[in-house]
């Protein structure tokens, strides 16, 4: 039988009242520090909400549907940025999900000796450790020149299709989407792998015993069984992609327009904040806070859902 510290303590010898008071104070103090973490989350919400209030009064919900961002006339609407945030994140998911799931399956099946797997997991995790700003720098000098030729081919051959209706002039939605895909790949791979590992071994053995091929087992048994965890991983990655700032700001072109073309420059909420916050004054600060609030709520919603899905897996 093992006891927690609290239980062990309950059977220890009685102490002097001063000692007991001090000790109770210590436990209480650790609880205050723990509550401080939740407090910070609430504080962030309140602070951004209060700072955004003047802009919320002026623009109300029209802020979410207007495409006009004009600091000179104090007119603010964030639709292009909201659109850009969602579009770049979905483009990133589209690119990262197949590769991420592939890596996760690769790492759960015993294709390789354990040592090689550990090294692979480590390398995939290193992808997440590289600072965002370094990805941005690399994107400007390596990725954009690299994408020029294929993007040019797409535009000249498939230019009638709205997605490729403009040429890639340099920064744009596509380079930002590719860099985001690289950055969220470790999240999808690592958490999907955890979800796949958590599937009971008996399930897999039963499927194989019934005569299913290894690939039928993976596609029809393992992936469906780990589905909620995988969805959680994808949503967590979506939250990361939507909040990601530096690499996107350096690669997306920061143009406040909405176009269907993934080769055209666009903007995201986080890039808008990164570009304008340091020089903003008056109502512009409040409008930026309003935009930050929109981003905060979008990511909060997605992260909470993801957290609930991933937790359900861990309880099995």
């Amino acid at each position, binding site marked *: 039988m093992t006891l927690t510290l609290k239980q062990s303590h309950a059977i220890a010898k009685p102490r002097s009242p001063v000692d007991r008071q001090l000790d109770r104070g210590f436990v209480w103090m650790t609880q205050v520090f723990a509550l*401080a973490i939740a407090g910070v989350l609430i504080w962030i919400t309140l602070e951004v909400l209060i700072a955004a209030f003047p802009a919320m009064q002026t623009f109300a919900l029209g802020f979410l549907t207007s495409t006009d961002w004009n600091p000179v006339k104090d007119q603010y609407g964030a639709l292009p940025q909201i659109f850009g945030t969602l579009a770049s994140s979905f483009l990133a998911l589209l690119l990262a999900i197949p590769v991420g799931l592939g890596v996760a399956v690769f790492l759960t099946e015993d294709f390789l000796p354990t040592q090689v797997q550990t090294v692979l997991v480590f390398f995939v995790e290193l992808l997440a450790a*590289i600072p965002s700003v370094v990805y941005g720098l690399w994107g400007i000098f390596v990725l954009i020149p690299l994408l020029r030729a294929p993007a040019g081919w797409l535009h000249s051959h498939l230019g009638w299709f709205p997605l490729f209706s403009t040429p890639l002039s340099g920064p744009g939605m596509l380079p930002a989407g590719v860099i985001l895909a690289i950055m969220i790949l470790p999240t999808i791979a690592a958490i999907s792998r955890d979800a796949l590992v958590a599937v009971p071994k008996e399930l897999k053995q039963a499927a194989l015993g019934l005569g299913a091929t290894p690939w039928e087992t993976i596609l029809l048994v393992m992936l469906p069984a780990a589905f909620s965890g995988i969805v959680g991983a994808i949503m967590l990655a979506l939250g990361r992609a939507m909040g990601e700032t530096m690499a996107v700001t350096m690669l997306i072109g920061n143009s406040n327009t909405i176009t269907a073309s993934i080769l055209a420059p666009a903007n995201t909420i986080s890039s808008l904040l990164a570009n304008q916050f340091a020089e903003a004054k008056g109502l512009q600060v409040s409008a930026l806070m309003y935009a930050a609030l929109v981003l905060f709520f979008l990511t909060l919603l997605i992260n909470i859902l993801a957290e609930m899905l991933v937790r359900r897996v861990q309880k099995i």
Partner: protein
Amino acid sequence: MTGLTFAAAAIALVPLIAVISYVLIQGVSQLNFNAFTQLTPPPGVPGGGFANAILGTLLMVGLGACLAVPVGVMAAVFLSEFGGGTSLASWIRFATNVLSGVPSIVVGVFAYGVVVLTTGGFSAIAGGFALAILMLPIIARTTEESLKLIPNEVRQAAVGLGATNMQTVFWVVLPAALPAILTGVMLAISRAAGETAPLIFTALFTQFWPRSILEPTPSLSVLIYNFATVPFKNQQALAWSASLVLIVLVLFTSVISRWATHRKTY
């Protein structure tokens, strides 16, 4: 199908190798002693380095750690030693995970509202405050994990000898978990050192030495951002060398912390 998963694993490694090798090639060829001793040059001026940015990064990450480590470690002590399976503890764990998902730019906006607007200027304190919030959930989670690895018999032995909760935590549990906690802290520090978004409008940037924690302060990551987009070759070269220094710092701490968490005291 097997080939497809092999391909996926290979594709995942391509960007890592591409980024690291490119930064290594560009960074090493332009890195010299001056980079670590001289100030950042103004546009168009050759030479110079980024000693002030290294110092600024260390200063702000240090400030952040001073704020985040005590709170994070004590919160983890509550979660692993006293809160246990209570619903309060599970809510706090939930809040910690949600906090780690808050976009760093939103944390920057928050620090701007709380520190920059109240103190009336961009400063190292504002930057350090933002970094502290980003470090807090990482420290709390890694510390809780490392405390969980300490067997309960150790706690029972301490309590059986008549130690109080406080004595057990400070003299037995924390020291035993110290290597793992330190690596968690290092992981948080390396993350914070690479953060840019919360610094561009809390600490801003200067070409000079950081003189006071109440003034705008340079950092490596903001230097890379600023110098990546200017047309001056010398500044672009400095951005690459700064990236190399930052990556070495970040990867080194990641590798060390991973290696050290596998070592157990008990």
